């Protein structure tokens, strides 16, 4: 049977606003399958986003949805989760939203290890505003504000998340469509803050400027650069040059924030 995505989408909201070939739709579908696989209940789930192309996802999903301000999704989500720990909380957004203007909220959500799943769609650019460089734009790449080549070093979102204390960190790509579901589902099942970075394509504002002839070229590049962690373990540094690791990159058990706060309540009531 064809997959019933419509069950999770608000009636009449498609087609979505994303450009032809944009991977956001592929990621949204992977997330929907993960929600289904994890049995998330619509009424008991909140999906929270910031501002940008990726953050428009909340408008389509038939859940409790909160389309917040630029960069602030993780902070709004922390309020929701803290107030109602029994709810499943999903955060979605792009690389600029999450790691530039929202960088502080991102690292502190990781540090608290609050039980949320943060899917960050990394297309290496600010798409909605027309292609300005983000902290995830490769050094040397062209953007509307780096026409002479991007002088900035690049964030490795997964390393940033691990360094900040996220207890589940994974990476996939928009090309590896089936894997998105598995990574997001594992992130949802994980107790604590799960960060799932999905490398994505922006054919409109990144691809054209950076000599990708088509959407297909961008998809093929995602295929070429991705190396599963198990395979990478057998490769030399030279072989790994220019590659990115995919799969579950980090997983650990650490006390979860709302459970820790439940203990604060117990201690306060006993005092």
């Amino acid at each position, binding site marked *: 049977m064809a997959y019933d995505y419509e069950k999770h*989408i608000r009636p009449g909201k*498609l*087609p979505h606003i994303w450009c*032809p070939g944009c*991977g956001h739709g592929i990621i949204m*579908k992977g997330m929907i399958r993960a929600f289904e696989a994890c049995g998330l209940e619509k009424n008991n789930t909140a999906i929270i986003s910031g501002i940008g192309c990726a953050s428009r996802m909340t408008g389509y999903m038939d859940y409790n949805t909160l389309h917040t301000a630029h960069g602030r999704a993780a902070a709004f989500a922390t309020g929701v989760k803290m107030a109602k720990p029994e709810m499943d909380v999903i955060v979605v957004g792009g690389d600029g939203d999450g790691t530039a203007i929202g960088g502080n909220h991102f690292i502190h959500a990781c540090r608290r290890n609050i039980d949320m799943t943060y899917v960050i769609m990394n297309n290496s650019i600010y798409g909605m505003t027309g292609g300005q460089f983000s902290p995830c734009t490769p050094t040397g790449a062209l953007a509307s504000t780096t026409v002479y080549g991007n002088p900035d070093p690049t964030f490795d979102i997964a390393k940033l998340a691990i360094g900040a204390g996220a207890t589940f960190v994974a990476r996939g790509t928009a090309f590896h*469509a*089936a894997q998105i579901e598995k990574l997001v589902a594992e992130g949802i099942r994980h107790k604590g803050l799960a960060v799932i970075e999905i490398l994505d394509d922006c054919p409109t504002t990144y691809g054209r400027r950076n000599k990708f002839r088509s959407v*297909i070229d961008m*998809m093929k590049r995602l295929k070429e650069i991705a190396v599963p962690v198990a395979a990478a373990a057998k490769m030399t540094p030279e072989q790994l040059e220019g590659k990115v690791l995919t799969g579950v990159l980090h997983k650990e058990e650490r006390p979860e924030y709302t459970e820790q706060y439940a203990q604060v309540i117990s201690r306060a009531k006993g005092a």
Partner: protein
Amino acid sequence: MSGAKAEIEIIERNCKGCSICVEFCPTKVLAMDAFVVKVENADACIACMQCELRCPDFAIKVHKL
């Protein structure tokens, strides 16, 4: 006799013509018709679901026969 393993439904209203489905179909079932995808070689479909899985636009449903 048709060899198709599935019937492919195109939701034209949602299709933006990115051609990802055309490119990644292993048996070349699909083709572009101006800015919308069409089923060109239905018999060749092996029901691998790649087009449905990869379509960013919720524009393809693959109904296995």
